[in-house]
């Protein structure tokens, strides 16, 4: 009986059928990184993005279906800066995949090479809300950072698949050209609104707003990750009236009730922007994301500023 049970325990652990594939199997934690990986990898990679663009990337369930995806990955691209701290570690542990563990060859932290804002200095405590001690993790919302992420991805892909290095380099150059053209377009379109004061729900947009010259004067959240409170909302309304801010930018995963109430009070407008690829139907890839957001912003700014 005992022998049988011992046997049962080990039979359950059957040998794994190793699967060899020509393509690099890429898993990214967000759709933005997934889109950049597709730009560089083309048909030499197959890409799976875990979190959807319309979901709060701080609160993603570490579903077992994600374990399956990560267990088969050759490359795992993460946003880093503790954005995924609530859900990625259990996926890594359960993945049984040595390649994409933190020190593994297939692990790529996209934040190592980019410009990070709001790195806290001095003492930080949770009394400040859910602060990110390593800086604001929403850094992908700036084309310059997108270019740097694409470089990291190109280098990582070339390291893992040296035979395709020139292919990846070629695709990077092509992406870089299209992105530069986009930047010209977006910068020119946004130029008339430089210095316009706006409000955002969460601190998701510092890189984006800095790039396009908009001045974020307040947040709907009293502190990062803390839901709106009546007293903070009243203060915010007063401050918006005083400074003449009319536009409230909200991520698609937040409730619109409070922002709408504020907009009514200040005679302004609520605008839902896509913080990520897939955050709206039109934002299908990294360049489309900026096309969509910039167009939406332009229409809204025109309306509230009358310019």
């Amino acid at each position, binding site marked *: 009986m*005992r022998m049988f*049970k*011992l046997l*049962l*325990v*080990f039979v*359950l*652990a*059957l*040998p*794994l*059928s190793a699967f060899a594939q020509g393509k690099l199997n890429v898993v990214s934690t967000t759709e933005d990184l997934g889109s950049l990986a597709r730009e560089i990898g083309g048909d030499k990679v197959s890409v799976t993005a875990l979190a*959807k663009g*319309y*979901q*709060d990337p701080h*609160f*993603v*369930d*570490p*579903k*077992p*279906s994600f*374990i*399956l995806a990560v*267990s088969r990955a050759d490359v795992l691209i993460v946003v880093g800066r*503790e954005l995924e*701290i*609530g*859900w990625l*570690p*259990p996926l*890594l*542990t*359960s*993945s*049984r*995949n*040595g390649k994409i*563990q*933190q*020190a*593994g060859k297939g692990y790529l932290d996209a934040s190592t090479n980019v410009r990070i804002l709001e790195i806290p200095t001095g003492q930080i405590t*949770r009394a400040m*809300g*859910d602060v990110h001690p390593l800086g604001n993790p929403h850094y992908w919302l700036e084309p310059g950072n997108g270019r740097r992420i694409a*470089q990291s991805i190109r*280098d990582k892909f070339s390291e893992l698949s040296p035979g395709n290095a020139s292919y990846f380099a070629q695709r990077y150059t092509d992406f870089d050209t299209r992105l530069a053209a986009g930047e010209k377009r977006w910068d020119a379109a946004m130029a008339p609104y430089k210095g316009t004061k706006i409000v955002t729900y969460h601190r998701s947009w510092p890189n984006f707003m800095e790039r396009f010259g908009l001045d974020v004067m307040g947040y709907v959240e009293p502190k990062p*990750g*803390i*839901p709106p409170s009546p007293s903070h909302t009243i203060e915010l309304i007063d401050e918006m009236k005083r400074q003449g801010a009319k536009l409230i930018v909200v991520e*698609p*995963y*937040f*409730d619109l009730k409070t922002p709408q109430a504020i907009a009514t009070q200040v005679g302004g407008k609520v605008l839902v922007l896509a913080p990520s690829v897939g955050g709206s139907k039109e934002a299908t890839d990294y360049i489309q994301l900026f096309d969509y957001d910039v167009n939406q912003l332009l229409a809204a700014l025109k309306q509230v500023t009358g310019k």
Partner: protein
Amino acid sequence: MRTTRFACAALLAATLVAAPRDAVAQAADQAQIQQQIDQLRREFNDRLTALEAQLAALQGGQPAPAPSAAQAPPPAQTTVDVPAGAAGAGGPSGPLPVYGNVAAGSKIFNPDMAVIGDFLGASGRNRVDPQPALEMHESEASFQAIVDPYARADFFVSFGEEGVELEEGVLTLTSLPGGFLTKVGKMRAAFGKVNALHNHVLPWTDRPLVTRNLVGGEDGIDDAGISVARLLPAGPLFLEATGEIYRGDASESLFRSSKRGDLAYVAHLRGYHDITESTNIDLGTSYSYGHNPAGIVNDVDLGRFTTNLFGVDATLRWRPLTRAIYHQFVGRSEVIWSNREQFDGRQRSMGYYVSGDYQFARRWWLGGRFDHSERAEDASLLDRGGSAVLTYWPSEFSQVRGQYRHTRYADGPDANELLFQFQFSIGAHGAHPF
């Protein structure tokens, strides 16, 4: 010292200048910059030497020996002053040495630490299983870190009112060939769902009656052993088989080993499928076997009795992705059968719970649970109960919960209780449970 500082500044400036260029050019630039730094360092050292010699000459002393550029300065002894007010009291005077690792570079390897407090209160009447009115039920300290490229370790130490207990202390081998996820240490067994969960992630202030009656109570199957889990190829379906071997000592009443061979075994098969992106189903079957304490008389296992446990569990989750922080529902049930040998023959007992929890606002949860369980030692005794639970989350790191619980015990008066709980967490941000 100033040389180093200057070199650092130069290096930093060089890095900033070099950063945006691409990799090939960067390597060439680096070599060039390194040369420049070395050049500057040499010039700087020569000049410093000359100045020192000049100074010595002006002071009328012997010319100072020229320090060689290659000579490293002796490691500075780190010191602190005698605390103010303590000087002259017969103790040491002047600077005191500081022992230990002052530079503290190795502190970055300290594990992630957190403490979760679990405070319980109870009012109402319960004569069968009374809890104290107020209780700091548990303070769970966790220490978690990566051990080396092949493993991570997780320790959970539980400080309760009765003392300290190692709830879990586990080495997890993450990169074994063949897809085996292996855990070694003391751990909560993968029997069903609730057994593997720590108190602070439960949706209630207590554990279901079936856990108390059939699976060894709050501690459950929490023993020293080895666990091996493997994903089974099943296309898009997540299928995981787990086999575990334990020493055979799980809680007071469930398993007790009186010799080395009295091991306990746990097997678990888990299937998971995403029905849609917001709805998923999680099914499991479990089996466990071990020697029970029924046959132990005066520390001698006369009966050599064993217990077999079978379980099935099902969890349905719904969480709309665009409103994931405001609404979700988790429905869960576990049914457990116990087959226990005793002096008076075999007892075949069954128990289950059904629960549902709904998050109706960003900070609010409403839940309910129905309990039904016979007792392992006497299947003719049936306990039943029902609970309603309301939970409030001020933030991700704290939680307040109230639970009304009605229990109809087989061998005592009915209990009507109002239980409440405060939970609070400090330290490293833990992973969200799933």
